[in-house]
């Protein structure tokens, strides 16, 4: 860090970006860890049912199990594409 670097516009500190990204992804991956083994298959079968009616891509489905003080919540998120009226 010389005096000249203070005159230049400050770039964003990449280390803090790295930390933030890691905190998010690691928290997400930990929440999936130890989840039931049937989740991927459940996701696939749900997707097949939904596909019968609306076109959706595999990436637009998110199945997640949350544990919250003794009760488990199975959360299913499907993002529908911009729909065109049939």
């Amino acid at each position: 860090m010389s005096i000249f670097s203070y005159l230049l516009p400050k770039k964003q500190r990449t280390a803090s970006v790295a930390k933030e990204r890691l905190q998010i992804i690691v928290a997400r991956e930990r929440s999936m860890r130890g989840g039931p083994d049937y989740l991927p298959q459940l996701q696939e079968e749900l997707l097949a049912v939904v596909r019968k009616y609306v076109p959706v891509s595999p990436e637009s489905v998110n199945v997640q199990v949350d544990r919250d003080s003794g009760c488990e919540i199975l959360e299913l998120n499907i993002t529908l594409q911009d729909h065109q009226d049939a």
Partner: protein
Amino acid sequence: MTRIVVVTSGKGGVGKTTTSAALATGLALRGFRTAVIDFDVGLRNLDLIMGCERRVVYDLVNVINGDANIRQALIKDKRVDNLFILPASQTRDKDALTQEGVEKVLNALRDDMAMDFIICDSPAGIEKGALMAAYFADEAVVVTNPEVSSVRDSDRMLGILASKTRIAEQGGGDIPARLLLTRYSPERVMRGEMLSVEDVQDILAVELLGVIPESQAVLSASNAGSPVILDTDSDAGQAYLDAVARFLGEDLPHRFLTTGKKGLLGRLFGGQ
């Protein structure tokens, strides 16, 4: 009592073998009978780092298959007493490592060879070799670089350690795991370009065994086939010596975490 230690990381190229070699050598220097096993079947490299590649006759899979006994396969280090190396095989047979086979080798090292420490140098990844290296471990050293993919993989590996060891399967819970942060550059941390040791600890939430600074000594040591911990003049060598002391329960402050203080002129015009 024999302590079995797995040196693991998930990601490749972060310094597992360098660390396994240094840790094993450091423990032997302290007078403990120590064996270091290369679990990277198919991609053997610990022998090169330890400088015994031309003395390999038998390997881990030979002992598992009964082609050789443990005494024949162990290579005794020429520099340090009490230090023994068991190389990996160069076979491409992925099923060569069996749980029963690995258990047999570890039992022989404990009962017949009276080892105090067995260091298991894990391959990268989370495939069979890595799982076998970790399965019988009493404790783990997780080697991590201050870099996003390495930290993420280490977290993944910590999750695997919590469920896929014999101790965990028998209901003994997580084995103790400690973090060794390698290739650390205090200058880059100060400039905000590299995750700091605090950042990595915040994310992984495990006890810190040591910080090894980025050092030219590591490449020189591997060029020469001499564990870097024997280069006691180097920063990396000293950092590994500290880590070994902490591993044995000594309470040492962490070194090499900051850059040297600069004078006014240095700060004004200094660059690095």
